[in-house]
């Protein structure tokens, strides 16, 4: 029932939603806002959770730089550092 209600609410909030994209919770820690606001603009946040826990800080840094470089994500440098720090501490090995 709860699942249903949330789905309905999401559909109302976003008529364009393809599937019933449910919220993907990330760990509550400093930098989460920067991750949700930047990374979440282009992809759902389950990418982060399923890609854990096995990436070192170096590998997470490379991933973030790939998004900023080849993928052209408009992430401010101060946000990039916050994002890398958050991912390395909360979803890194």
């Amino acid at each position: 029932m709860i699942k249903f209600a949330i789905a309905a609410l999401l559909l109302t909030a976003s008529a364009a939603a393809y599937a019933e994209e449910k919220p993907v919770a990330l760990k509550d820690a400093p930098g989460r806002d920067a991750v949700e606001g930047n990374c979440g603009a282009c992809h759902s946040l389950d990418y982060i959770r399923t890609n854990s826990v096995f990436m070192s800080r170096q590998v997470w840094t490379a991933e973030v730089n790939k998004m900023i470089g080849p993928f052209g994500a408009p992430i401010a440098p101060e946000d990039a550092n916050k994002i890398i720090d958050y991912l390395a501490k909360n979803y890194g090995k």
Partner: protein
Amino acid sequence: MIGRRRLLQGAGSTLAMGTGLLPQLAAAQGAPLTSGLPSGEYDTAALDALPGKKPLIKLSYRPPNYETPVGYFKEVFTPNDAFFVRYHLAGIPDQIDAQAWKLRIGGEAASGILELTLAELQSGFPQVEVAAVCQCSGNRRGLSDPHVPGVQWGLGAMGNAIWKGARLKDVLAKVGLKPEAIELVLNGTDGPVIDKTPDFIKSIPVWKALDENTIIAHSMNGAPLPLLNGAPMRLIVPGWTATYWMKHLVSIDAVAKPFDGFWMKSAYRIPTGKFPVIDRFLTQETPANTPITEMVVNSIITAPAPGQRHKAGQAVKVRGIAWDGGYGISRVEVSSDGGKLWRDAALGKDSGRFSFRPWSFRFTPAKAGRYTVLARASNRAGQTQAETLIFNPAGYHNNVPRPLTVAVS
């Protein structure tokens, strides 16, 4: 004409709700995951149904990446509504107008230009059918050891279908290729959320484009292509991994120089010479790495189900499927003792060299215990599944046999 999804709006609403409300909803709910995946996948992946689809294993919502639960591979042909879904970028069409669809074929190395409607594709060219496995290059990436970044696919980023459409070579003959044509560049309507992200564009060598099995398909298992599998037309490149099977196809351009887009030059590459593959995409090859091409020979056990109980003295029926890059499966062997002794399985109906090939095997355990069952396939090119993982940074081509523990009491 084409509704293209720009999901920034959707992202905003999701983000607003994702800041602590009911986080348990995102936890895995009954998704049948195999062992050996990253730990984070087990509390994130969930069974979830996309429009027109049965519940599949959701790895990511946006773009949608959903894999087929292994139970569906008990059938040789994968049902359309259970067929896996894979997109790179979240700008995907949420509807298509098949009647208004136009596929443009041209380019600098073509003699002319042609625009084809769906009706013209269906009526203007001989219609052919091919049974072929569509497998994501990254299938089994999640089982890489060590793990590597990317969509953490388990066993189900693949499916087998009967594809129907027109041969690409017939369409190209109508346009005419110049002698200098070396690659065909493929684009579909799916694209990035922001303009700076490279659009998903791929190329194939001319020789593969002219292969009689390479078709522009409009139909899958006797029905129009599902939206999420490339409606109204997609390229079918039998034997090669699905990265070349462009969905929602809108343009094919013949070029005289190697296409240098991100998705060719920087993605979907394997270390040169590391894998026993025969088909090579030489205009894209460098000494260090080369585009992934054909699928490696592989198999999966579909029965008995994990956890099923068996009794000593009674036959255990082992079933599965095998496939490869289009040479054809010649042999499947099964071991019931963890790989010491191998015996031949019986091959089932042959639906063509690009199709899943069913096989079956039975053994009768004399006493109680735990039996480790393995299957390994070989093909007509003399290749057999690898004994140990050939590690590569993108986690491609994992065809190491997967052990199944059979408990006998």
